[in-house]
């Protein structure tokens, strides 16, 4: 259980960072909707788990937050990437691609065999 959560936390962090990179400053709800949108219906997660992940990223200094006003005039807390966060997106993207490439090599022959 713990392991799965870790994997999820790891990928979730990257998704958040990537979202903020492309969308600029955004509040928690917006990030959640965006992630859901992009992943289609495949990912259905409690939005609640998003907030500890945001907190962690903020503690690590990759994102910063401040209170602002949303499109429909609601008070909301907006998150945005810091400079360290931008670097982290690049680094993690690279790592993720590498992992993916390696895994692909493992997976590819099997698919051919079967």
């Amino acid at each position, binding site marked *: 259980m713990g392991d799965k959560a870790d994997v999820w936390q790891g990928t979730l962090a990257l998704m958040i960072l990537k979202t903020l990179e492309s969308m600029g400053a955004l*509040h928690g709800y917006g990030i959640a909707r965006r992630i859901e949108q992009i992943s289609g219906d495949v990912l259905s997660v409690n939005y*609640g788990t998003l907030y500890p992940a945001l907190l962690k990223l903020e503690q*690590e200094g990759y994102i910063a937050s401040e209170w602002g006003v949303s499109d429909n005039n609601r008070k909301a807390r907006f998150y945005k990437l810091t400079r360290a966060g931008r670097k982290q997106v690049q680094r993690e993207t690279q790592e993720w691609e590498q992992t993916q490439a390696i895994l692909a090599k493992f997976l590819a022959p099997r698919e051919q065999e079967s």
Partner: protein
Amino acid sequence: MTWLRAVLARFAGMFQRTHREEELAAELESHVRMHTEDNERAGMSHEAARRDALMKLGGVEQSKEIYRDRRGLPWLETLLQDLRFGARMLRKNPGFTAVAVLTLALGIGANTAIFSLVNGILLRPLPFSQPGNLVSVTGTYPKGAFVAMREQTQSLDVATYFEGHEFNLTGRGEPVHLTGTLVSAELFMILGARTELGRPFYPGDDKVGQDNYVILRHALWEQQFGGDPAIIGKSIALEGTSREVIGVMPADFRFPSAKTQMWIPLHNDSRDTIAYWAGDFMPIIGRLRPGTSMAQARAEVRLFQQRAFQLFPWPMPVSWNADISVVPLQQDMVADVRTRLLLLLGAVSLILLIACVNVANLTLSRAATREKEIAVRTAMGADRRRIVRQLLTESVLVALIGGMFGVLLATQGLRLLKAALPADTPRLADAQIDLSVLAFTGGLAVLTGVLFGLAPALHASRAALADALTSSRGAVGNVSHRLRSGLAIAEISFAVLLVVAAGLLIRSFWALSRVDPGFRTGQILTARVTPNQAFCDDPLRCISFYRELLARMQGVPGVALAACVNTLPLGGRVAKRALDIENQPVNPGENGPLFWMNVVTPEYFGVMNIPVAAGRAFTSADATGDSAVAIVSAATARRFWGSQNAVGSHVRLSSDQEWRTVVGIVPDVRAYDLQKEVPDWLNGTIYVPYNAKGTLEGGRIPSDMSVIVQSSLDPAQVSAALRRVIAGLNPEVPASEIKPMSVVVSESTSTPASTTMLFVAFAALAVVLGVVGIYGVLAFLVSTRIREIGVRLAIGAQPRDVFWMVMKDGARFSLIGILFGLASALALTRLLAGQLYGVSPFDPLTFGAAAAVMGIATLLACYVPTRRAARVDPMVALRYE
């Protein structure tokens, strides 16, 4: 460093809680609102929209809970919470807290005090630069052999020293007798020692003719020269020789021991063949040169040792330095105290174990009363780990408080220890409560807390929920009884072990103090009267000085008799001399047997009350003339002459031409220590009269005689008279070490005395703690059985029956504990064997006495709770909860 940043952020997250909570609530609320609005826009009713938003979020409170775990440091928060709670519990039970803290403070304090000794003496590196490279060569060498070693060894730089040479400081008011250490010029450089003032000796400072230097120790400089910095470069008169003061060493430089007051270059005069090759045999220290190992140094020194035999102008016995080696200097310096310190450490760790067991038992009793509290917590959802953790936090807290008081006790204890241990214990002054000792104590306290807290905590957390909530106090589980009894038995057996050890040491010390040393110890005052050696260049001047001194002393009213001897029995000094014995030739090339040579005035045997067993004592004619006579001890006579009568046979001091006639035999006296007449490396004892022929090795008559005065007067009066007489004769001559013979004797046993005293103190502490422990257990057992006892009484049992029923329980613990204790003592007392005299480590009397002491003590401890049980009023007992 991302993680560090995160940890700091989380640490900060523990504060401003209200503000952060408000922010979180606001953020989640805005999330839910936005989501609800979106849903409504998609056509849902307000209620459905909000419910969906909440479900997607996973619940507001649940989300907050996960969020909080991430915001702060949960383990730290829990710890603080537990600590706060623990502190509150301790405040609410002042009785428990006081007893537990006091018990632990005693245990931890004793351990801290002993550990600070172990740390300062055995563990801490020597206070010299790069102490790891300092070594000791285990043999001893005369000057000539040392100089050869200094020139020849490649793997290490060597230096030598000889402590205990004595010097009169004159020309500055009343003469003072000082102890100095002769050192080779390299010594200070090898140790890497810096002077406080002036300079140390440099190589070459011990060249003959350019060696009239002296370096003072800080304390001497202060006392005798008023701390005058202008002393450097001035000359002072030591033994009539003028020496230039070139340096002052700081107060914390104590080499080879705290006894040394000054350092003087070794006089390496190779023309003086006797002194050069047969004078003091000195220890050698060295510093490994860079890149060489201990093994290389050892190999080189062994090779040198083989060559060394050829260097001597005469053949050396093959046994000389036969087992030569090179060992770390520290190991060599503290070899003697090591065993004793480790024994003491073992004893105090037993005390700490007993203290732990005691507090564990207390905690168990308290846990029984807290069963309901714990059950409620469990019911509210605390898991077992959480409960154990909280209980352990509490016990570690108790232990830490105990540890703090323990450190306070230890600072006092260390002072007492330093006073109790013999003053010549190496590095004693280095022992102090420093950071490493405090770290040790802190670690020990935490360990202690876990040790005494774990069993009760596990036990308490296991308590069945339903049972605890429904049952009354009577239903304390069997497990608890067994654990408790086991703990009581354990502490009794630890206490028995310590009592046996203390008993053996007491027996041994008693045997030692009852030893008849073979001479009178009462009504004798001793003093070392030491003219300069140069004063005795003319032996007759020296002899007549002492003779006149004795005559004047005997003229003092109240003084019965006075005499002189070069080495006072049990005085810590030995004079060795090789002898030839008539008709007992030694192999060519070997020296004759070594004897302890006592040079005495004729009154000596009278003052010391040593009767003559055969032949005659010395007469005044022997002293004034130059008659060549000798007296031997009974053991010596047996050893060398056997059944033949030694009287009338002849002996010769090696290097003498003339034979001496043995004129008498006197009984053996314990001169080396209370166990031995002579040390193992000597073969016998000989007495010669103090005349011009009574020469020591080196060919001089002794010039540092001990004067012994037999008088019924107060020692202070005798000593005043002695000082007066000496001042009248020669004001340049100092008198030192003035003390009654009985003090000399008791000082010779200061080591066993201190070990015994400490063990007795520890054993007493162990017995007290053990008694408190078994009292507590039995009192608790009685309190849990009150209702049962009430029933028994109600249906006709007599109070007497109840009394015996409970007493039997107590007696059973005590008996089992004692048996375990005796068994472990059988296995462990052999460790003490080296400290024992005249008693076997398995002495049945001691074992029996220890068992009896512990048996009586525990039964007394049982008596109070047992009486309480017998006096139970059945009506009260049956209503009891």
